[in-house]
């Protein structure tokens, strides 16, 4: 049984087809990389998987249930999404890290926060930093921590290392590998050929909104 199943999905905006008749089956524990030229619809496909937009036609099921039958908040709490451009809201790192607890009405679990800061090689005192004091790499790592506060079952990554230097890229890649080893399903967009082949078990190529190629790598 597929964890996430996209069946003949299309997405049209103002008569322009962005995604056209894409079908994809994602199993528990998969590590799928999505490649393709800029503007081919990769990010839209990921947004469809995250339920931030809905397909114009076709169906998406999660654990054999159509997304339309699942409460959107419950689904998004199981399917984490990290955007390409790191974005921290409010003014401080603390507000971002505590946000997942706030929306669940829970008290912060400091041991979990400490663990994630350690995993991403971030000193814990960065919690007290203002957002504008952080570099791009540090912001992206905080964004990743924010997405991992409550461990998702599926992690959607939209070119999260595209703007990072070699050191930050390596840190983030190691964390993603670690999460995959723990059984988290990863779907990651990348422009980096080496990255797309390194650990993923499947690679799909999107061209002009269509599934052009699907490769089993391992």
């Amino acid at each position, binding site marked *: 049984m597929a964890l996430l199943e996209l069946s003949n999905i299309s997405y049209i905006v103002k008569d322009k087809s962005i995604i056209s008749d894409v079908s994809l089956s994602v199993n528990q524990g998969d590590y799928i990389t999505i490649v393709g030229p800029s503007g081919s619809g990769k990010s839209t496909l990921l947004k469809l998987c995250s339920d931030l937009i*809905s397909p114009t036609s076709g169906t998406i099921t999660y654990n054999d249930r159509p997304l339309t039958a699942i409460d959107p*908040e419950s689904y*998004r709490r199981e399917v*984490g999404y990290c955007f390409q451009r790191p*974005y921290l809201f409010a003014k401080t790192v603390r507000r971002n890290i505590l*946000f997942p607890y706030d929306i669940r009405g829970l008290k912060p679990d400091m041991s979990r926060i400490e663990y994630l800061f350690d995993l991403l090689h971030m000193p814990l005192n960065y919690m007290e930093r203002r957002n504008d004091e952080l570099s791009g790499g540090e912001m992206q790592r905080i964004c990743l921590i924010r997405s991992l506060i409550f461990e998702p079952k599926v992690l959607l990554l939209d070119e999260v290392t595209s703007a990072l230097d070699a050191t930050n890229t390596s840190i983030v890649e190691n964390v993603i590998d670690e999460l995959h080893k723990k059984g988290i399903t990863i779907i990651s967009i990348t422009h980096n050929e080496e990255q797309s082949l390194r650990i993923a078990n499947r690679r799909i190529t999107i061209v002009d909104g269509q599934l052009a190629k699907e490769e089993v790598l391992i």
Partner: protein
Amino acid sequence: MSQFQTISTISLCLASVLVIISMIMSYRQELKLEKDIFISAIRATVQLLVIGFILSYIFSTESPIFIIGLLGFMAFNAAYNSAKRGQGIPHALWISWFAITIGAWITLSILLVTGVLSFTAYQLIPVGGMVISGAMVAIGLCYRQMLSNFELRRQEVEIKLALGSTPKQASKAIVRDVIKTGLQPTVDSAKTLGIVALPGMMTGLILAGMPPLEAVKYQMIVTFMSLSTISIACFITCQLAYRTFFNTRNQLYK
């Protein structure tokens, strides 16, 4: 008011020389505004005389249906005007109308219950007009700020939704900013009352012969009722309007 300082017609005619001064200034400076100044003075005179007669008629009525009907008409017009600032927000007209009506109704009810106002057209219509127009301006500001915030902070809202928040949680920061924007001019104006400028209503009462301390009391009530109505109207508007930016799947509209 103990006694009115009336203005004689002759004094009024003599004061119209002030208009001639501005026409002469325009002529000397070659602004070519003499005709416009003359027409605007004539229009102002005619319009004010007409509204004077209408108000005399309105204030002479004691029919509660007429008073409530007129207040309702004012609220609808104010809603129509503020909704123009919310083009792109579905049901902006009805949201504005509801917010203005509830805001004005609560404020006027408190003023009636506490005995500050009596249920007469003479008191309710001008005071109602003040609170309704204040709410109209504040709601217009709220709409503009909300449209701009949902556009500029789209990614922030999407990130919060992706983290599993409800539209209410994802919009909380925006709604807070928008309410502040709607309230700020009134709060700023209240802070500087009597320091930067004497408010028009208070000045009018003093000119009409009311002792300054009595006029101040009226101005305090006007300030309090403006704050109350605008707070209620901004809160209701934002709470109803933010939801229209999301669809039934709790996704942001494109």
